[in-house]
């Protein structure tokens, strides 16, 4: 197995979901490893486990141990957009981005807008798969 995706709790971690869903949709062979959230404080078990691999301190991150950098370390990609571009680069036969150049540019524009935007929705409606939050949703 060359690709390992490290994810957080599946019901809460929206960024982990983005990558996990992409890999599943295109049936890309990947080993998935779970780093349980205990807290996001600097000394938490979660942060310490992430720091063993990634300097950015967040999930998801993708490790490709078939590619080593000049210092001999396996390649670690710690941002969802960069992971998507890496997969599109590596699996060029898969239509990860639309084939039409204009549609591709539009798709990337919206992904980028999602990447640093829509913060009110993200702050107030933290992803939580499975529970009925309809009362809170109306008040929000």
């Amino acid at each position, binding site marked *: 197995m060359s690709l390992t995706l490290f994810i957080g709790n599946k019901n809460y971690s929206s960024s982990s979901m983005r990558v996990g869903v992409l890999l599943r949709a295109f049936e890309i062979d990947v080993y998935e490893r779970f780093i349980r959230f205990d807290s996001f404080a600097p000394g938490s078990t979660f942060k310490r486990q992430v720091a063993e691999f990634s300097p950015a301190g967040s999930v998801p991150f993708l490790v490709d141990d078939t*590619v080593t950098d000049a210092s001999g370390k396996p390649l670690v*990609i710690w941002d969802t957009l960069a992971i998507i571009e890496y997969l599109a680069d590596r699996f060029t036969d898969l239509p990860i981005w639309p084939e039409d150049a204009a549609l591709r540019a539009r798709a990337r524009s919206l992904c*980028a807008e999602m990447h640093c935007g829509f913060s009110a929705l993200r702050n107030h409606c933290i992803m939580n798969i499975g529970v009925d939050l309809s009362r809170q949703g109306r008040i929000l």
Partner: protein
Amino acid sequence: MTLKLYIGNPNYSSWSMRAGVLLRAFGIAHDEILIRIDGFDANSTFKTEVNRIGATGTVPFLIDTSVQDGHDQSLIITDTLSIVEYIAETFADHAIWPKDRAMRAKARNLCAEMHSGFGALRQHCLMNIGPDLSRAGALIWRDHAAVRRDGARIETAWADMLALSGGPYLAGGFSALDAYFAPVVMRLKYYSLPVTGESQTYMNRIFKHPAIEDWVGGAVTSAEFLDFEEPFRLSTDDPEPV
């Protein structure tokens, strides 16, 4: 020209700088259209103009009049990261991203981290090309641990990239990654934030790059004092009120 880059005031708009510097560095012909920032309220002339043209309320955006989308309108690309990818695809003979796949992945990694991160540095040290903001910078650095953490993370990332690539730029030759961090170089310089000797050497190199010189020169000569972008000055001629 088929490519039209719409930008905000070049001394303040860090995102405009990223796209503008990239196009300059690779000699990509384009028209540049300034949408003067008068405010960010929904009824400001700036927002009205951006929305009229069809973008999503922010600058920069790139229009390619040679490509029509499904609505028979010119293609509009509304985010710096997607502008970078579009330019890299359209001008595939230029090394806008590094040619090596691992280096390319690392460069994209850091651009994406920049795209949604380093919030403390960006919030406290608004980009402002030209004035000496060293007194404000010293206080910000003293009082805000999150700014110091952002600074440390950026310097670690730069050092890692320079060690891996061998320099002289972050990924070897000047690439999208350097364009992406150019506004950070501006902040570190004009707020005089403390940096390592290695970072200083890299920053000096960035300031000497022709694309940066061109942007900075234009930013300084066209600079217009906008009070909402100036928490640390009263006007260009007044001393800092800090």
